């Protein structure tokens, strides 16, 4: 039987970041996954590293995490495709421009640089957008990354500090902190970090995490067609509205010259398949904002499942009545961005060190039904 200080279940980007951070503070770590590195939500995600202002807690987590990515950027391998891109939050009309001004003030007060673009400045920045848009908020320091390679890079860093990686082996038994794998191996760990996205419910059936399905599409290479990630302001309404199904325009330039088009959200849909009605709606939304997209060649589509919580904040911290088990899940659409911050908070939980931001808003114990479970 193998022994270690911490077993991290899940080799997605959150598990990878946790493994690296734990190994860096000197703990012995084993990372487990039933599949290859980053083959769940990490593979499906867009890789947009952005500061979001949906709530103070979300702002704090995303801002801290983006700063951590900035620290790491010079070290990342080329295939991580890290690129400072900023973000253009597009306002379709005057009502949305009012929101742009509010956000500008909010970000500014908290030390994040943004600029307000009027309709002409927006058209100059992205000539392929349709005419007549009111303007945009430009967030300067947001960035892009290719998540599967970033996760692999984080795991390589952890391994350089002695962490072990066990792929393609499922957890079939968990007794206290003793883990049994489908290939027969047993691992006895001091603590367990669960970074399993929506799969958290296979070990903790009452965890307040629901899958939110998303569709994405990628085009062939059109270098220079757009130069910033462009997101409609209505995205936030779509992301957190109560509808069972919604779409929002979200378009990214990849370092390869390809364009990545999103986004869609569906609550509690179990099937992985591409759903034509959602794909059609998503593309139609894209064409409303950028009609010339219609001429580009789409080469691939896929779906993925975000791990969503009721308050749109992740679950980071101990399971109340199992204090040696820690959750690192529920990141919804922000897992790539907040993976590094999540890892810092997990380190603080496991070692008692001072956290860089408050641990409180993300504690799993905030959900009453979870406490009882």
């Amino acid at each position: 039987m193998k022994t270690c200080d911490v077993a991290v279940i899940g080799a997605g980007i959150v598990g990878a970041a946790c493994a690296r951070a734990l190994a860096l503070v000197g703990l012995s770590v084993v990372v487990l996954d039933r599949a290859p590195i980053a083959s769940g939500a990490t593979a499906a995600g867009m890789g947009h590293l952005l500061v979001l202002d949906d709530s103070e807690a979300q702002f704090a987590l995303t801002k801290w995490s983006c700063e951590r990515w900035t620290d790491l950027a010079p070290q990342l391998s080329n295939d991580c495709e890290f690129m400072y891109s900023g973000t253009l939050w597009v306002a379709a009309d005057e009502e949305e421009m009012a929101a742009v001004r509010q956000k500008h003030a909010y970000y500014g007060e908290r030390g994040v640089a943004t600029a307000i673009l009027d309709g002409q400045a927006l058209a100059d920045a992205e000539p392929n957008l349709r005419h007549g848009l009111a303007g945009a908020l430009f967030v300067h320091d947001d960035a892009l990354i290719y998540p599967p390679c970033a996760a692999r890079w984080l795991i390589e860093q952890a391994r350089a500090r002695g962490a072990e990686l066990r792929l393609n082996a499922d957890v079939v038994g968990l007794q206290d902190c003793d883990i049994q794998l489908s290939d027969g191996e047993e691992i006895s760990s001091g603590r367990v970090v669960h970074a399993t996205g929506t799969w958290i419910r296979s070990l903790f059936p009452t965890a307040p995490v629901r899958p939110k399905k998303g569709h994405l599409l990628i085009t062939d290479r059109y270098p220079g067609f757009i130069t910033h990630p462009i997101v409609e302001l209505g995205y936030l309404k779509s992301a957190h509205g109560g509808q069972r199904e919604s779409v929002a325009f979200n378009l990214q330039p990849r370092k390869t010259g390809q364009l990545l088009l999103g986004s869609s959200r569906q609550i509690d849909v179990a099937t992985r398949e591409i759903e034509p009605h959602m794909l059609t709606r998503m593309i139609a939304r894209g064409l409303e904002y950028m009609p010339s997209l219609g001429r580009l060649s789409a080469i691939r589509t896929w779906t993925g499942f975000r791990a969503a919580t009721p308050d749109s904040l992740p679950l980071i911290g101990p399971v109340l009545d199992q204090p040696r088990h820690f959750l690192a899940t529920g990141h919804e659409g922000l897992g790539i961005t907040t993976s590094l911050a999540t890892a810092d908070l997990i380190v603080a939980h496991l070692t008692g060190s001072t956290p860089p931001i408050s641990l409180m808003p993300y504690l799993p114990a905030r959900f009453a039904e979870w406490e009882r479970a």
Partner: protein
Amino acid sequence: MTERISLFVNGQAVESSTEVSVASAVMQANAGATRQSIHGEPRGPLCGMGVCFDCRVTIDGAAHQRSCQRACEPGMQVETAPKPIAPDALAERATDSTRDCGVLVVGAGPAGIAAACTAAEMGRRVTIIDDNPQIGGQIWRHDPVKSPPKQTANWFDRLARLSIEIIPSSQVIAAPTPLTLVAETPRGTMTLRGQRIILACGAREHFLPFPGWTLPGVFGAGGLQALVKSGYGIGKKKIVVAGTGPLLLAVAAYLRERGAIVDMIAEQARFSMVRFGAALAWNQPGKFVAGLALGWHLRGITYRTAWPVRAHGTKRLEAVTLTDGEKSWNVPCDALACGFGLVANLELPVLLGCAIADDFVQVNERQATSVPHVYAIGELTGIGGLDKALLEGQIAGWSAADRPQLARNVEVERRKTQRFVNQLADTFSLRDELRRLPDDDTIVCRCEDVTFGQLRSRTNWRDAKLQTRCGMGPCQGRICGPAVQFLFGWHNDSVRPPLFPTTLANLA
């Protein structure tokens, strides 16, 4: 009819004709290259049948067009280097039309034509959709300078006499339900609803990577034949034919007939023509006669056990190194026509949910797949060539016309074709040495320039995709997928719409 026209390749006027594909015109004008790889190397067409995407060019401002699938038009502006798209707010609005079909046949090769004729003669309303401008598929591909042999002409006539709707230059990109197919046509998208669907999607060549195989001038065997039929001139050019399978013989004979110098066919299998011929005569007298006729054509061409290990050249192919396992030798040449057998085009059957076993669609004795009202025929159910395709087409036609009991009359023949499938597979099985052809710098995924060395550290197909982008380019793994399966044993089993790259307007 053939019309002399001129078009522009990278701004230079080029004389051509409307029978010539853009790929052939560009190759003549541009030293065999049609595009630059993402690392800036020249690439030319490989497959000649719209699968590999190495022939893509910008046509009249529209980037990433497969030039082998388009005929030259007067005044066409073709660019081989990527150019930024000028901002343009006007997108073409794709038109969408819906069609209710009785029997819908996908693929107008021999199997599809036989199925369509059979079902139509039993009174069914039949529609055929095909990605080529002309019917015939690969083996009966239209040849502007040569009229088809009698058997082929008979089938074409039979098809023409029946009121069968043919939708050419169109390919299925999605299937919202197993009986509803969405196709990309030259005039926007079309939704086709069938009461019965007969899949006759055929096969593509199996390509294996070796150093230099990405040089312009290295083609598929069937690939070069297809390109020559679409106007690529090979007169007096020295061509080495290599790889495996009976296709090599037909290709060598064809290339020579069209003026090429073909001295040798390098067949990788330890192959006994006598044993194979005797077995053929037993199972398939028709094939044996055809084989003898071919032998007559091939007189003077050395047919020997050998395989390519390296292609040489800077901007284009100049020579190839062959080996027989003991000694190696260099052959200067202008083109290498090289294919390692055939693999079934399983993408659409998989999308429809048809059960697959050992890389072929599973069917019963009536050609029915595991999906109700969906049939599969021809190379999809096993690589067996023309006789099998025609027979299975006929059986599927009966089944789709609700007369499946007629299939009982041909059970003996059907079993014979299946024996032939196994015999082909055994005779031309790929030797282990071919797994050692690529070195670490050899590109395996031609779309994304992923090397063998990059793939060696990955654990399975999904891992390889995510970490290296292998199979993530426009060919969607059609070329590298079977190569990777042979080299590493990894299977590419995920198929999602769009089945072929298509415009966003077509998907909206």
